[in-house]
């Protein structure tokens, strides 16, 4: 135990790292979990959020067990940036009935990757809409599936009506280098969009 203590500096508040997160959104089967797994230092983990109608403004659920409850699984991975910063990548639940999770996922996020699935581009419409509305910086990564239309980035940009300032890049979620490039593109975009002087 003693060595673990000194390693993490347990007991000194400064030693607790700061966590940041990036959201990976896109339709069902677009490659979100694959992307997370490609860059994560751990096998993606799955956590579950339980939402209960009664959890809003009610302190005690003891007697309300019949209230409707929804469970949503989120998968995530982790990248240790340095001793002080750890980055989490969260895949969005791909289903509409889990839309309620998006606000919590997006809160405080650095930015988002929207994975566009070339077999069904429309499945990422609402992710794009959501991040635009939230003002959360995002990039679109076009995940090309075998046998699908050989879209070019420009065509996807047009089809999804993506503003010129938002990067649209080609990607392969199974390829670590490709995923790294997508994340570099995103964080660069985030930094750029935070410093208007540099873009103007």
């Amino acid at each position, binding site marked *: 135990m003693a060595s673990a203590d000194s390693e993490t500096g347990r007991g000194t508040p400064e030693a607790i790292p700061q966590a940041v997160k990036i959201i990976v959104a896109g339709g069902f089967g677009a490659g979100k979990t694959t992307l997370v797994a490609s860059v994560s230092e751990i096998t993606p983990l799955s956590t579950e959020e339980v939402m209960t109608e009664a959890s809003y403004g009610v302190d005690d659920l003891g007697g309300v067990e019949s209230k409707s409850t929804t469970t949503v699984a989120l998968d995530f991975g982790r990248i240790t940036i*340095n001793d002080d910063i750890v980055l989490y990548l*969260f895949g969005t639940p791909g289903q509409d009935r889990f839309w309620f999770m998006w606000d919590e996922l997006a809160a405080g996020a650095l930015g988002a990757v929207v994975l566009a699935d070339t077999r069904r581009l429309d499945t990422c419409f609402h992710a794009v809409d959501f991040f635009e509305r939230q003002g959360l910086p995002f990039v679109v990564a076009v995940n090309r599936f075998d046998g699908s239309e050989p879209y070019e980035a420009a065509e996807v940009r047009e089809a999804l009506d993506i503003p010129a300032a938002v990067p649209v890049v080609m990607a392969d979620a199974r390829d*670590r280098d490709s995923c790294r490039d997508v994340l570099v593109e995103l*964080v660069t975009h985030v930094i750029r969009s935070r410093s208007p002087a540099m873009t103007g």
Partner: protein
Amino acid sequence: MNPWDRPGTAWAGAAEAAGGAAREHPAPFRRRGGGHPSSEGPAAGLARGDGPSEPLVRPYTLTRGRTRPRSAGPALDMITIVVAAGDREEHHLEPEYKEILRLCHRPISVAEVSARLDMPLTVVKVLLGDLVAEGDVRTRAAVPVTRLPEKKVLQAVLDGIRRL
């Protein structure tokens, strides 16, 4: 050893993959901006949730029905990093708290505690909140979610990702 280097537990994504394969719908070309939640079709949500199903209310029995910690403390986000306070005397704790404390011997996020103990986030937040209130667990002073990440944090993240 890197304090974050702990073997991951296996992740089972098979259910979702199977569900995805079954959904072969042609993509009619729509303009986006149609809003949610109906834009992907109501059937989209049905693939999940048929895993080993336990009564959904079970989690709250762990917290005796509470949806909030016993006393108000810092709000716990899913990426709040928590760590066991090093200077605590041994004292009696119920098993679920002990399990959480064991995981917190090194800094760990709320989401990871939830995933590794297979306990819903909601419940983990309540129990961790109790431990924080008792002084058994410490968190990093929360950065308000409304505040944008600092430039130097972004730069460090960029540098870190480039090294991948």
